[in-house]
């Protein structure tokens, strides 16, 4: 679901870099307010590796084949570290796999990273809203919601961008149908990523609960 080079007009790519630059600055500012900003770097670094590899894990969902994104998971576990982690992961994916591109790095980072930050806040709100439930239910359902919604928002942004900037010379109806088909194939992926986020959060809560706390 990465936007490749050359399919978006230049102003959109530049705007993408601007939004990404601002969000990176904001995330780093938030991280700097923690008492020990480097404490979560090992966790962020390992999840960057997972995010980097995840895009090459393809799941065939007819008629399309989609790959894991894991941006909701990144947000849930990393909080503000998620945005720089997504940015670095996308840069490496563009260079190593050719997924996405360097000119669209800004657009892709904003498309996946900002939903990751929203997923982090959603995880917190949902946990507070369900605090009268048992710990496992509250954690599990919040993580599922964050993982699924994080990806869902990224798909919505992708849909909006690709539909608004259909290049000239394309059969717009055919391309629109193809884009909608791909977006529909991401609905099962939302469930998969939500479930994966929930399982991982419940597992971490059992073996190393301090990893779920934001410093």
């Amino acid at each position: 679901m990465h936007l490749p080079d050359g399919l978006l007009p230049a102003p959109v790519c530049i705007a993408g870099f601007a939004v990404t630059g601002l969000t990176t600055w904001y995330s780093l500012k938030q991280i700097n307010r923690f008492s020990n900003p480097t404490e979560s770097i090992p966790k962020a670094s390992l999840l960057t590796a997972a995010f980097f590899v995840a895009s090459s894990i393809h799941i065939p969902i007819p008629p399309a084949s989609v790959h894991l994104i894991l941006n909701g998971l990144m947000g849930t576990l990393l909080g503000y570290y998620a945005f720089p982690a997504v940015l670095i992961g996308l840069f490496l994916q563009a260079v190593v796999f050719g997924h996405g591109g360097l000119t669209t790095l800004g657009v892709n980072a904003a498309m996946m990273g900002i939903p990751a930050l929203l997923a982090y806040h959603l995880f917190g709100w949902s946990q507070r809203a369900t605090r009268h439930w048992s710990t496992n239910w509250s954690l599990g359902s919040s993580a599922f919601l964050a993982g699924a919604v994080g990806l869902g928002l990224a798909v919505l942004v992708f849909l909006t961008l690709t539909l608004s900037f259909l290049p000239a010379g394309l059969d717009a109806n055919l391309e629109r149908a193809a884009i909608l088909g791909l977006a529909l194939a991401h609905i099962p992926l939302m469930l998969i990523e939500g479930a994966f986020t929930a399982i991982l959060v419940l597992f971490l809560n059992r073996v190393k609960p301090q990893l779920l706390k934001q410093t």
Partner: protein
Amino acid sequence: MIIMIRTLLARLVALALPAVLLPSAAWAHGVKLEYQVTQAIQITAAYDTGEPMDNAQVVVFSPTDPSQPWLTGTTDQQGRFTFTPDSTQPGTWEVQVRQAGHGDILAIPIEGEAATPGSTTSGAADTVTEAPATVAPAASGPSYTALQQGLLVGSVVWGCVGTAFFFARPKK
């Protein structure tokens, strides 16, 4: 249909009017078929999983006008698309393949001269001319072997793990 009419006329001429020579221009339905051998370019589009991009949209841009599409079409079931570039326009031809927001752009350098068209009229000797355009097969994007790709991925992952170890080291 046109071919059928031509054959019928040919038969009429052969059977009914063997002795009468008519100038071909007098036949309002006379048909002239021409052909020329040119160099075509075949694009094969596949996702990095190896799955062919079938029914993907292809837009071809000529070197003289890179903003207006020169040709549009779709790939077949095997992800293939064939087109014949105009050899009077040497330069870099750009082919954009796109499906559902995924795609790539391929730049094809073509150094050619105008191909001399070979043409046939009924019964005339065939002339076949080949366009001397030269194009080397090429692919877009990085094309590494599985080993290189594996090593790249391994290096990146190890870089991340190393960073994690560095920041997780016990404080003195």
